[in-house]
Structures are given as C-alpha cells and as structure tokens.
C-alpha cells in the first residue's frame, strides 16, 4: 500500500506527460508537490518500516535522504516553470523531460529504500538511464556528445557496481545463502564472512564504480562537462538527487566494510578522497564558469561526505549531505539567472538586480555562495567541524598520528584553496564588472526560498537530534 502511495505521484506525472496540452506544464510542476506527501507520511511512521517485505525497508537514514531529495525535486520542478525564459525549450521537450523525470523518480525511490543490493542496483540503473535522456533535453551538439559520454561512463560505472555486488554476494553466500543480498543481514553477519578478501575486492570494485559515477578522481571533469552541457535544472537534479542515491549505497556498503576490515576501508577511502579533493581543488582554482565551478565543488563535497562517513562521523556526513543537497541545486538553479545575460561571465554577475525580487535574489545567492564554503551559520560549518572531529578521533587511535594529522592538515589546506577561489569569485560577482539589468521570476525565487528555508530547518536542534539518532 505504502509502496503504491510512494509511486503514485510519479505514475501520475508519467501519465500526464503523455497528454499534449499547454497547461500540462503547470499541472506537472504542481503534481511534483505531491511527491512530498507520501514522504512525510513515511517520515512519520515508526522505523524500520517494511514497505515491501525485506526488499524495501524504510529506516532513519533512507527516509531522511528521501525527504531531502523530494524537497530538492520540488524546488527543481518549480524552477523548471521558467526554464524557457532563460533558454530555448520546446513544449515537447518539457513533457519528455517530465516523463523521464517520473522514471527517474521511481528508480531513485527503489534504490534509496531498498534493503537489497540487487534492487538497489536496478533502481540506480533506472535512474541513470533516464538521466541520460534528461541531458538530451538540451538540443545542442555538446549535450548530445555528453549524453553519449554519460551513457558510456555511467554504464561502465554501474556495471562495476554490479560486478562488485556479485563478488560481495559470492563472499557471503556460503553463510547466508540467497539472503546474502540484503543489507541488514549482511551487516549483522559481516564478521562471519569466510573470505574477507573476496568481500574487500567486491567492495573496492563497488566503490570505484560509485566514485566514477560521482566524478571522483580521475574522472574529475567528466561530471562538470555533462552539467555544463545540459540545462541547469538537470544539473541541479544530478547534484541534488542522483548523487544522493549513489551516496546512500556507499553508506550501506561501507557500513558493512567497516565491520569486515576497518583499517583497509579507511586507508582506501582516505587516499582516494584526498586525491580527489587535491585535483578538484586545483581545478576549482582555475574554474571560469559557474556550472563547472559548482559541479566541481559538488565533487568535493561528495568526497567529504564519503570521508566523514567512513571516519565514523555519521552525523557530520548526514548533515553535510543535507546541506549540500539543498545548497548545490539552489546554486545551479540560480546559475540559470546568473548566466542568462552573457554566458560564462563571472564578473558582475550579482549586479544589476532591481526591485524587491532582485534584491532578494542576489541576497540569497550570496548567502548560498558563502554557505557552500562553510562559513557560519551554514550547516556545512557544523558538519565540517564534526566531520573533521571524527577524523581526528580516528587519527588519535591510529599508529601514525603525525602522518594522519598532517594529512588532515593537507586536506584542510586544499579546502582553503577552494575557499579562496569562492571568495574571489564572490567578490568578482558582486564588485567587479559591468552593471546589466537582469530579471528574476517569482517561481525561481520561490524555489530558492524553499531551499533557504530547508537549510535553516537543518540547523534546528530537532534536526540535529534526529540526525544524531540515525547511525
């Protein structure tokens, strides 16, 4: 029953998108609000709640992520209303976008809620394939090229994930039989796995697949190019929702890996994310347009979330995840407005907004920009505090204290390179360049306000307690 309720809005959207009607655009975006209702219902149910036997189980972690994603989805669809004001889109493309958005949403829901590695993978694949088509809504040759790239790389990545899943399955099948696919049983029996090395290889392949999909080292510009080529709401969906599906899988797999051999896991993830952040930070240092900048910073934050999670900073990782999921789409959506007047121009991008709407717009965008480099009172400030705290705690327990602290310091310095770049860009947006008059539409502003409010909600003590309760 619950499953049906969850899928209903997406199904309605799918059906609606098949009708040719001018009003469909509006109705579609309002149906997207319906996404939220079953989510809230699910959120309030006692956990863990079995939606579909042992296959789909809602617990604290995934309902939180689902809730965050649905808010992001609503914000993005709202901003879609005025997409045609900034770029050229045909009504057909709109409808097709919604059709695939519906499929995307279904896949997403399955993968986030699943308690089964296989179903998780199926959902992820569904979501990935539908996004390929969403990239294509933009009828440019670069978008076409990037869609193919995404198809290929996404397919490789996803196959790697499946390969890893089968290896993990193989490692656990001798003790669990067919149930070796379910996350919770695997977690409970992780210590009994007979061949930890097989599991570790599986885990390594799974995480490489996931990292490739999130654009980590060495695929750093891949995601940026795709997001550059597609429409900005698609980029927002990518950074806000699709990555959340990936990261939730990473959370689950790494949780099991922690039980199997924590040291290996930590060293692997730490080196990998450090490398990623190293490259990303210096790429950001040279970033020259908003889209690339934000998508690179998205990679950075994903790396941080992964790192916080494996360091044991569950709370920090989740908070950071929430903050990033709200901030990044908000920024991507605002690039639509920022770039509408002369592409790629950073200098003076925040200038020339008249009236109440304009003032509010630039104010919110400045806030988001400053929040993404974790200045207080951004939730990222807190999450980074706690996340690095968790890492220091690990360092203290390890045998290589000085090396670990050195590495953390190095990481912090890399983050400050990013910080520097963002500060420079913010200043250039606000204080340099020409003053051109630009327009902001209420729907965009409304979605930005939604994101801002959700960010504030993240800071409430209630949310903190809730997030601390998960783990």
């Amino acid at each position, binding site marked *: 029953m619950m499953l049906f309720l969850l899928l209903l809005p997406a199904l309605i959207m799918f059906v609606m998108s098949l009708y040719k009607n001018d009003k469909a655009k509006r109705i579609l975006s309002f149906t997207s609000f319906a996404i939220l209702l079953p989510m809230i219902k699910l959120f309030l149910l006692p956990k863990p709640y079995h939606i579909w036997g042992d296959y789909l189980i809602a617990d604290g972690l995934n309902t939180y992520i689902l809730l965050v994603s649905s808010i992001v989805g609503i914000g993005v669809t709202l901003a879609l209303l005025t997409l045609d004001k900034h770029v050229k889109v045909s009504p057909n493309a709109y409808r097709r976008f919604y059709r695939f958005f519906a499929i995307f949403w279904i896949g997403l829901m399955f993968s986030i809620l699943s308690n089964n590695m296989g179903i998780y993978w199926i959902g992820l694949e569904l979501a990935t394939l539908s996004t390929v088509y969403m990239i294509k809504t933009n009828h440019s040759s670069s978008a076409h090229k990037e869609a193919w790239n995404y198809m*290929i*790389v996404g397919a*490789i990545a996803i196959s*790697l994930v499946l390969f890893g899943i089968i290896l993990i399955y193989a490692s656990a099948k001798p003790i669990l039989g067919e149930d070796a696919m379910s996350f919770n049983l695997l977690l409970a029996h992780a210590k009994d796995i007979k061949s930890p*090395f097989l599991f*570790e*290889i599986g885990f*390594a*392949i799974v995480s*490489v697949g996931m990292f*490739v999909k999130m654009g980590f*080292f*060495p*695929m*750093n*510009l*891949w995601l940026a*190019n795709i997001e550059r080529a597609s429409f900005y709401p698609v980029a927002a969906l990518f950074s806000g929702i699709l990555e959340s599906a990936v990261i939730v899988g990473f959370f689950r797999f790494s949780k099991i890996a922690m039980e199997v*051999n924590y040291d*290996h896991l930590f060293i*692997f993830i730490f080196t990998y994310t450090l490398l990623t952040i*190293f*490259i990303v930070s*210096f*790429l950001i*240092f*040279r970033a020259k347009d908003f889209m690339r900048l934000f998508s690179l910073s998205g990679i950075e934050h994903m790396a941080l979330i992964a790192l916080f999670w494996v360091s044991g*900073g569950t709370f920090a990782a989740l908070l950071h995840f929430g903050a990033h999921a709200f901030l990044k789409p908000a920024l991507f959506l605002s690039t639509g407005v920022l770039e509408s007047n002369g592409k790629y121009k950073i200098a003076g991008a925040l200038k020339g907004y008249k009236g109440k709407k304009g003032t509010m717009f630039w104010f919110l965008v400045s806030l988001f920009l*400053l929040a993404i480099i974790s*200045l*207080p*009172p951004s939730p990222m*400030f807190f999450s980074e*505090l*706690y996340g*690095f*705290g*968790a*890492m*220091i*705690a690990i360092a*203290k327990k390890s045998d290589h*204290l*000085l090396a670990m*602290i050195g590495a*953390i*310091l190095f990481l*912090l*310095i890399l983050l*400050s*390179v990013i*910080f*520097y770049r963002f*500060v*420079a860009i913010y*200043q*250039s947006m*606000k*204080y*340099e360049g020409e003053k051109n008059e630009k327009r902001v539409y209420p729907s965009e502003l409304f979605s930005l306000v939604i994101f801002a409010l959700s960010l504030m909600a993240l800071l409430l003590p209630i949310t903190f307690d809730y997030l601390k309760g998960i783990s």
Partner: protein
Amino acid sequence: MFQFDTLSIVFVLLILLGSVPNIFYSSGYLPHIERKMHYQVHYFSFILSMIGVVISANALVFLIFWELMSLTSWQLILTEIKDKTTIEAARFYFIMTHFGFLFLLLFFLIVTDGDLEIGFVNMKDIASDFAYPTLLFFFIVLGFLSKAGAVPLHVWLPYAHPAAPSPVSALMSGVMLKVAIYGLFRFLFDVLYPWPLEWGIVILVIGALSSLIGVLYALSEHDIKALLANHSIENIGIILIGFGMGMIFDSLGLKVLSSFAFIAALFHSFNHMSFKSLLFMGAGSVLHQTHTKNIEKYGGLIKSMPVTAITFLLASISISALPPTNGFLSEWMIFQSMLSSSHIDNTSLKLAIPFAVFALAMTGGLAIACFVKAYGITFLGLHRSTNAKHAHEVNFMMQVGMILMAGVVISLMLFTPFYISWFDKVLVGLGMGSIYAQIFPHGMWNLHSVGINGGVVSPVILLVSLVGLSIFMMFGYKVLNVKERVHNTWGCGYKTSAKTQYTATGFAGPIRRFFNWLYKPDEHFVKQTIAGHESKFSSSNYEVHVKPLFEKSLYHSVSRVANFISYWVYRFSHFEQTRYAAMIFNLMILVLFSYRIFAHEFSWATFVLEGVVMIISIKVLIVGDKK
C-alpha cells in the same frame, strides 16, 4: 555556552572601550557611506561577534563567533569599493584569516576529542594526554598570530586594514587584533599549561621580529593608514615580547616575574587598543577631508583641523612610548620584565634576552621617527595639495568619537593602578598569584617593577611635573610680555612654498638608506633636464616604493606554486576527456593491485612492481603514441 570569568570580562571591557567611541565616530562617518544598510548591519554584528568570541565557553561557540568575526570584517572591508586593490585586499585578508582558522580548528578538534561542546577546562586533560603538545602549541600560534598579524603572517594586515572604512580600520586594528591575544591567553593558560621553555622563546622571537619589521615597514610607508597598520604589527610584537617573557619566566618557576610580564602584555593590549583606534580615527578624519591616503598630499592640517590634530598628537606621543603616556608605561613594564632576566639561571638564555631588549629599544627609537614623520608631514608645515587646502574640521559626531577615545587614552594614563588591579585579577583567575601589592607597594603613585632592585616609575608625578613645568614656563613667557612679529620663514632668499618642504619620502630617507638591504626599494627617478645639462631641470620626480620582503619571498612563491600545480592538474584533467574507459581501466588495476598488496603479504618488491605496471599501462593506454 558563555562564561564571564575575569579574563573574559576584561576583554569585554577592552572591546567596549574600543567600540563605544567608535560608534560615535562611525555615526558621524555614516553619511559618506553609500551602502548604509550593509555597513550598519555588519558593523554591529562585527562588534557583537568580537564580544561573543571573548565570552564563549566552549569550542563550538568560540569557532562560530570567530568565523563570524572574520566574515563581518571581510564584508566591512568591502563596504567601499574604490578600486581593485580593495577587492584584492579583502580577498587576501579573508584567505589569511581562514588559514589561521584551519589551525584553530585542528587545535580544537584535537583537544575536544570531537565533542565540541565541552568547556575549556575539560580540554586540559585531553590535551595533556595528547602525545605532541608542541604541535598543539604551534597550531595555536599559527591560528591566533595569523589573526594578530605577527611576522611572518602579517602581510595581509597593511593591505586589509587601510582598505576598510576608517571606523572599521580603527576597530580591526585596535580591537580585533586583541581578540587574538585573548585567544593566546585563554588557551595557553586554560588548556596547554604548563609550558616548556622553548614555547616562550618562540613567542619572544616572533614578538621581537614583528616589532622590528613592523616599524621598519611603517617608516617606509606613504599611505597613512598602511603606516598605522604596520604599526599594529609592531605593537602586536611588543605585546608578544611581554607574553613570551611571561611564559619564559613561568617555565623557569619565576612566578612573580611571569605575572608581571603578563600584566605588561595585557596593559599594552589595552594601550594599543586606545591609541591605535585614536590614530585610525584621526587618519580617517584626514582622509575624509582630503580624499587621499597619500601622506605627501597633506600638510598644514593642524590649522584647519585642530581637534583631530591634538588628539592625533596625543596618540602619537603615546604610541612612541614617550613618558608619561600609557604607551610608555606598558612598554616600561615590558622592559623591566626583560631586565629582570638577570635572575635567570640559564646563561645562554640570559645572553639572548639583550637582543630582545635591543629590538624593543630600537623599535621605540624608530617609532618616534615614524610618528614625527606621520604627524609632522600630515599636520605641520604648508598644505601640500589643494585637497589639503580645502580641508576643514570633521563633523561633530566624529569629533566626539575622537575626544572620547582620547579620554580612554588619558584614563589609561591616569588610572593605571585601577587597570592593573583588574589585570592582576585576570592572572589570579588564570591561576597565578596576585602581585598587585608588589607593583604598588606604597599607594598608587609609584609603579614598581617586581624584579629584585627593579626600577620604579611614577606616571602621575611625571605627568604633573611635566605639565606643571611647561605651564609655568608658558606663564613666564606671558608675563615677560615678549614682543612678537610675524614674518615668512627664511628660505635662503627664496620664497618658502609647499614644494620646498621636506617630503615624507625625504624624511624617512636616511633610515631607508640605512636599511636598504632589507627594503630593496624600487626607485623611480624622472628628471626633465634642460638642454642636456645635468644640473638644470624643469621638473623632477622621485618616488620610492617598498614591497615587503616577506610578500616577495613567501607569499608570491606560494601563489606561484599554486598556479603551477593548478596548471598541471588542469592539463592532466583535460587530457582525460576522451579516454574515460582507459582511465577507469587503470584505476581498477591500481585499486585492486593496492588492495591485494596491502591486504595480503605486503612487500616492497610487489609495491615496486605495482608502480612499474601502472606506469607502463598508463603510458600504453592513456598517453598513447605521439602523432
């Protein structure tokens, strides 16, 4: 969440003393600011966040307010954008302050074990369990001293402070730097006590270097606000000398001397707050009237701006550490504590301290030269530009601000015992003994050094006798009823004009020449000769620009390295664009190989093998053959 022990209260007092006159000044300054709303919001939240930092009782709150303080001050620098340099200064400031924040963050994370909401006192146990306390010490030093602007983390300061609107410069230089000093007091005492001897020496050396370098660069500066900002570096150095002496004495077990040195450092923090705020306000008034920061464009302002001139004079005397001002008193205390180093048993240390004495004395001498230059060129002589000619006294509110600040300076001078009793309480609160009775053994008139056979100074008596004598003589002059005649200055037969005056560049000339090896100045000399004669020329222009050595050697190389790395990373990343599959292939091999090696039977041979395999496969699959 918040705590109000004596240290906090004293620093709250410092912030209030610094900001209340400033609020008056700022309200007078406000009509000239375009973005009033932006300015006001950030101005007041800046003050509040500084207070927040000093009263916070746990790491989380401390860090939040610390970052808010940086954030708001950064936004305040950006209030008035006149040119690109302001933007660059703001960026530089923000990144440097963030750099310091990193170290503070690491420090707090280590001493709190991840629970950021524990009180400072509880951190002590965790810190003492930590294997490398010196690491913690360096984190603290880097964290706070980058904010305080001590050498070599000072380069941002002469850019950032002048770029802000003048009331904000006054707040940043006068008050915000002291918040960093608060941090040193708070965490060195509450968390990292007791200290090894070396820590004190480190602080002492940093202090001595900062004081000398600060004053030397101040001397060569032509931008009045940058000059003052460089002086902040110097004064932070002096405070750190006091602080370092206190730490040295404490680790040698000389508790009384140590308290004395700490009191001196606190006292100098207060004094610097008072006179530096006043100086920045004065400079702001001048700037406000003449619309230029170039000191060479001023001159003769004392006639049109008497209030500014007099308050500026008071502050100049005080910052030059001339008796009987408060600046003199605190520097005297620091001197006395250094002279008490003869009680130290450690000969090599004893031999080293005279160098610090030398640095401090030299600083004093150069500071005098510098402020004679700043005051003389700005306020005395003839107007050097039309801007200066049209200057007149600033509005009432700004005057009130300056007069109130002058009142703070004078109160620090007159009520030294009162202030010192509070500083004494601070140190008692931090676990040292009370030494108030030893500093003022016979009433409040004489300030005694606590060293054996130490010196004594009686500020009030000095002040009264100096003022009394001068007034007596002036009275005598009046009584004598001397005939007076007004005539032009004698200029060897030539007409005295603004152009015949000594310039600031000229004034600092001898000292600059003496320190040429340090300054390495860029000299620009343009002469329009007439008919090829060397000695005949219609116009000539001589300019000297000094770029700080540290900026050249340290900061530029850092930015070059960053550029270099980013260039290669960028190329590397663009390279990947078409070869995704190959990248993934290699990545898989790398990860699996590493897992195999590290998970089972690690040996160097396999490790090397992995490297070779990776290099070959990257060469073959990614780089490919050149076409």
